[in-house]
């Protein structure tokens, strides 16, 4: 390998193996999956995301949620832990991410997996309070507060329907209320859209499991 050309051809060929095997294969195969028909509703699976949920993905990316939260339920042949913890009823497959603009698979679980957080915790009000002050609804949580996604404002006439039901030290002073900003609403819409409890041809869901869903809610 005295010549650059020889060295470069060698590097090119060796590099091509993983590039072709992983990148090209993924783009051509996994990059062109189609949704499947949903016999129950006549829609498609995975279901389309609502506009606010799509906007919420950008908030999820901006806040760096992926630094602590994964979004994948691992294959049972590798570990049964994820399903036993109630993080999902079946393993995640590539098609589950079809509607996302970015796959937030994550590599760290300082917090819980979120692939099915919309199934586990379907209450938007809970999410608002949790984002505002995680410790108030989930004692001992090390999640930081996202209070910057909320606005403290003077009550104009009637109490807003959206105002958070806060107690103790979190409660705003008299005459004020805490309401979610558009970012908070979009983020929560996105979190509630995270539910991969539907069956896919490559990832069936057993009926009994489906009925049990949510049994392991927020531990």
């Amino acid at each position: 390998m005295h010549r650059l050309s020889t060295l470069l051809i060698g590097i090119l060929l060796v590099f091509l193996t993983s590039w072709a095997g992983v990148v090209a294969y993924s783009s051509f195969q996994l990059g062109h999956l189609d949704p499947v028909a949903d016999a129950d509703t006549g829609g498609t699976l995975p279901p389309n995301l609502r506009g606010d949920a799509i906007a919420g993905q950008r908030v999820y990316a901006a806040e760096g949620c992926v630094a602590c939260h994964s979004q994948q339920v691992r294959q049972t042949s590798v570990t049964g832990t994820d399903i036993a913890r109630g993080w999902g009823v079946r393993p995640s497959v590539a098609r589950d991410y079809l509607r996302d603009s970015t796959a937030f698979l994550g590599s760290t679980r300082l917090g819980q997996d979120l692939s099915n957080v919309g199934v586990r915790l379907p209450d938007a009000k809970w999410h608002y309070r949790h984002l505002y002050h995680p410790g108030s609804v989930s004692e001992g949580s090390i999640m930081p507060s996202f209070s910057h996604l909320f606005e403290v404002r003077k009550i104009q006439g009637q109490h807003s329907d959206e105002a958070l039901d806060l107690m103790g030290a979190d409660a705003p002073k008299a005459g004020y209320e805490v309401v979610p900003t558009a970012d908070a609403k979009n983020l929560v819409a996105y979190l509630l859209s995270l539910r991969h409890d539907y069956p896919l041809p490559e990832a069936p869901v057993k009926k009994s499991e489906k009925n049990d869903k949510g049994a392991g809610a927020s531990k």
Partner: protein
Amino acid sequence: MSDTILSHHHDPESDGAKAACIDASVRTPVLLLFGNALHWLVVAAFLALLASVKLVAPGFLGGVAFLGYGRLEAMSRDLFLYGWASQAAIAAGIWLMARFCDRTLGGVLLRTLINSAVVLWNLAVLLGTLAILAGYSTGVEWLEYPNWASAMLFLSFLMIGIWVVCLFDRRAGIESGARAETALWYLVAGFCCFPWVYGTANLLLTWKPLQASAQGAVQGWFCNGFLILWLLPVALGALYGLLPRLSGQHLNRRNLAPLGFWLLLFFGGWAGLARLIGGPIPAWMTSAGVVAGVFFLIPILIVMINLFGLRKGGNEEGTTVWQFLRGGLAFVLAAGILGAFTALPGISAFARFTGVTASVDLVWLLGAVSFPLFGVIYLALPSLLGRECWCASLSGLHYWLTFAGIGLLAVLLFLDGLVAGLALLDPVVSFLNITSYVQPFHVLESAARLLLLAAAVIVAANFTRALAAERLFPKK
């Protein structure tokens, strides 16, 4: 000092003159790159410390949008990867290639191009970091910079990298099989792989994103490729080039070196997929990743056979240069073993997503990659400035603080990961309980981060102090 070490003629007089001439030609870009890299390292270490404190006290800096844990973590890691590691690797590549190939960086146009590339690179790092701060992160791990910032990095790299790679064909002693041959292969490989790995990943994940169903495999491939195909080859290039020269000994079993080189590139491209085991990618990919991850030990062992026996440091023995190079070699071995160990399915099933993975990454990035780069910096600066310039006590302090910081942090993260991983196996133990088990580790991890910040501040101060009396753009 290092003048005669790095060239392969045998006439010290003309050697010194030639080396000084080469050094003078690359002085401005190399000093700028190293200087900026060290200062970004300080910022990265500081942000990493803030992030780790937030794990202990979630209320710390609460309510400040741009200092949330997720943003701090992304800014700190990207500053480490692009501000420090990649930038120092580029500088090391320029200096080592020019010296090993015995070629000056000639021509006003070329110099202007390379100096502009250095400015462009740092501008991209600065703007990319500010973009994450302001909430414009892409949300893709290791690729958080917005697409325009990553495009600037890519362009800047090409402006420098093409010249570095082309040096290989213009080197002196091309027919004689000069002593630094293996080092040159690794450097060329690293500089070829960066644009390919970084360009592919950005194209498919941020510039023109693929359907998200295909992104998982590409993300896994990128993180691994960035480390094993770009940063590690440059670090190994430095070790292969400098250890034999400083010790005045030849490589042991030199005929194994080409095999090690090709196996490293081959298995390296696949090894990272072991990480994604059980994830939403085809099972054959993770199986290939497990095999490659274990077989990756072979090239690492060849590197050790080649280099571990070179124990005598000649004039440099016992100096900070030698300590960092030898330490780097030991970390390559440690990282290779840890990597193969955590690639085993039985281990990764519970270690994945925990501190164990973070610990292995730390040994790779801060140990195997950063130690050899520090060694190059300590060797290059006196040579580039033409005088002894380091404050020896600060250099020594930097080495021991870095070593202690990495050692402590790696052990803590590993233990924290083991505790969390084993506890997670039992679904009866609630997640919040597990969080409370590992909380003591997080406190100690913050202390280790503080050591690393102190180390970064010391080396940056030492560098700045050395340069203070120097004119960066000498008058003609």
